[in-house]
């Protein structure tokens, strides 16, 4: 009874997309179902080739799914051509019209919708102000920097006030500083306009900082949907844990209500109903480095000073490796070769099926 929920902007049901036929068939999307709420900043996260862009293109209308259906605010748009969908895209390459000025680019959608010239001018001025490009209205795209072109692409997609804005890795071409700026800029625009944003990225940090919810994808499948906190703290499997932030994995065996790891040490982790062999996902910041004799014995193999934090690569007695991130001042001066003890914040450890 999906369709009855008025609060759903995009409802994709059992989307499959197969390119080619027979032996050469490539499954781009398996059986993906996803509901994105109105006004949400939703991020599709995954490595390249995981199907996130294909899913986005299905929503935009550039691809027709092989199976399944897509509903927009309750209306089936699976086979609606892209120019009849109240959905706009910010392209990875920006795809600005090189022969049109910034203002003409931004007004293009409204012009195609047949809006009167006066209304278009008003909307264009408003949207350009929103992205702080008022003074560039008469420039051609080629006369703008990458960051400015990015803003024009954003303004152009926002001007027709779409129900859903699709963003296909829009920040990947920007340098780090500009990317950080645009991240908060995008977040601000999304809050101000109230438009549903569906954002595609392979950058987990970007996903964590900007999104209301994240969908993690891999090999054409949607592995987990949740808030950044849920995804980070409670990854459903090893792939998600590994993809979202740095994670240590230790194999272990359930022993009564505890898990015995390779070194023989017992950890009192939240087991749930796991039994037998398990994998423990441990974030580097959940590992602390202590003097020798406390906790689990380990040898430092590498230290990396990162400013406020120091990263230690440690090897345990059974040969498994673990990374710890500790505050630089609390760690004292330790160097490679030192024998130490580590403590694992067992309550925060995520137990996964092996």
């Amino acid at each position, binding site marked *: 009874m999906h369709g009855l929920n008025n609060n759903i902007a995009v409802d994709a049901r059992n989307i499959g997309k197969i390119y080619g036929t027979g032996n050469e068939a490539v499954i781009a999307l398996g059986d993906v179902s996803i509901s994105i709420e109105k006004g949400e900043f939703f991020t599709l996260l995954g490595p390249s080739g995981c199907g996130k862009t294909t899913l986005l293109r299905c929503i935009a209308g550039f691809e027709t799914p092989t199976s399944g259906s897509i509903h927009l605010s309750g209306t089936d748009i699976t086979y609606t051509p892209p*120019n009849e969908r109240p*959905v706009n*895209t910010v392209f990875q*390459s920006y*795809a600005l*019209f*090189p*022969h049109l000025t910034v203002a003409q680019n931004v007004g293009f959608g409204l012009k*195609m919708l047949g809006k009167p010239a006066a209304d278009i001018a008003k909307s264009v001025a408003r949207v350009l102000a929103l992205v702080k490009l008022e003074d560039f209205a008469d420039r051609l795209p080629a006369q703008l920097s990458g960051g400015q072109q990015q803003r024009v692409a954003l303004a152009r997609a926002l001007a027709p006030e779409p129900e859903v804005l699709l963003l296909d890795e829009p920040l990947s071409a920007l340098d780090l500083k500009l990317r950080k700026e645009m991240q908060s800029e995008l977040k601000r625009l999304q809050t101000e306009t109230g438009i549903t944003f569906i954002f595609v990225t392979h950058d987990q940090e970007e996903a964590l900082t900007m999104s209301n919810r994240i969908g993690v994808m891999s090999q054409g499948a949607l592995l987990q949907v949740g808030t950044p906190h849920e995804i980070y703290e409670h990854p459903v499997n090893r792939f998600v844990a590994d993809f979202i932030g740095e994670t240590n994995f230790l194999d272990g065996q359930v022993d009564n209500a505890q898990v015995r790891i390779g070194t023989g040490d017992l950890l009192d982790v939240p087991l749930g109903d796991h039994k037998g062999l398990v994998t423990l996902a441990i974030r580097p910041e959940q590992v602390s480095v202590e003097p020798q004799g406390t906790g689990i014995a380990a040898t430092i193999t590498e230290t990396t000073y990162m400013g406020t934090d120091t990263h230690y690569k440690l090897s345990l007695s059974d040969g498994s490796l673990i990374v710890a991130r500790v505050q630089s001042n609390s760690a004292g001066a330790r160097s490679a070769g030192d024998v130490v003890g580590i403590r694992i914040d067992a309550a925060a450890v995520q137990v996964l099926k092996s």
Partner: protein
Amino acid sequence: MSQRRRQRTKGANGWLLSTPALILLVFAASGPLLIVAIYSVLEKGDYSGVRWILSGDGWFRVLFERDIFDQTVSLADANLSIFWRSVKLSVATTLITFALGLPTAWFIATRPAKVRAFWLFLITIPFWTNLLIRTFAIMEVVRNEGILNTALMNIGLISEPIQIMYTDTAVLIGMAYVYLPLMVLPLYAAIDRFDFRLIEAGYDLYASRWQVLRSVILPIIKPGIIAGSILVFIPSLGAYVTPRLLGGGKNMMIGNFIELQFGQGQNWPLGAALSTVLLLIVLVSLVVYTRVSSRDNPHG
């Protein structure tokens, strides 16, 4: 400072390098043009050639004719209709080659890189064959007992052959065929540089297929359209062989009319004046065309 002076010296003598080109321009292009211009204001010789006496008769007879008996002056309707037919057929040829050339160039530019060279090769094949032979080939297709009429009669669509040969239609078919590659190649070059992602951007922003063509594709490939149109229009206007063979004696174009003056007509000054008029028509058309097409597009 010294470096700047050296640069200036280099610039001052640099024009010497263009001497061969200048000589070629002066003697091979401007020189003959000058001769044509001078001949147009001389008196016609008794049989051919010119007498070195200044005369406006050549220019006068471009537009007017004098009655043999009462010497009254009237507009030379025959000449005007030849001018008009030439311009009309050349514009039509340009439009037809554009209409056929755009899909063709688009098709080639969207093929995989490997097979594009093959398609381009096919387009250029006609260039390898003599124009006369190509025109005879067209004659073989359109004449009353030709391939087209025979085929149409055999399948029963017509009972009498359609008279295409020796009409403007035949000239048009011939010219469109001959000049099509000149339209396709610059269009291909423009489409090849076109960023096809812009088409998706157009669809995404509510443009229909027609609007994407008109508001995105055509304005961006405009340099190719201008180049192709110029390359087709100019030789069409001065075409000689095609209208001569396919149009017969009656459907003359300017080129045939000019040839007539230097041959049978034995009026070199008129021929020279007509040649100059042809040049002027081309120049004016070019100026008007580039002005109009470089005007800001309707999005302004």
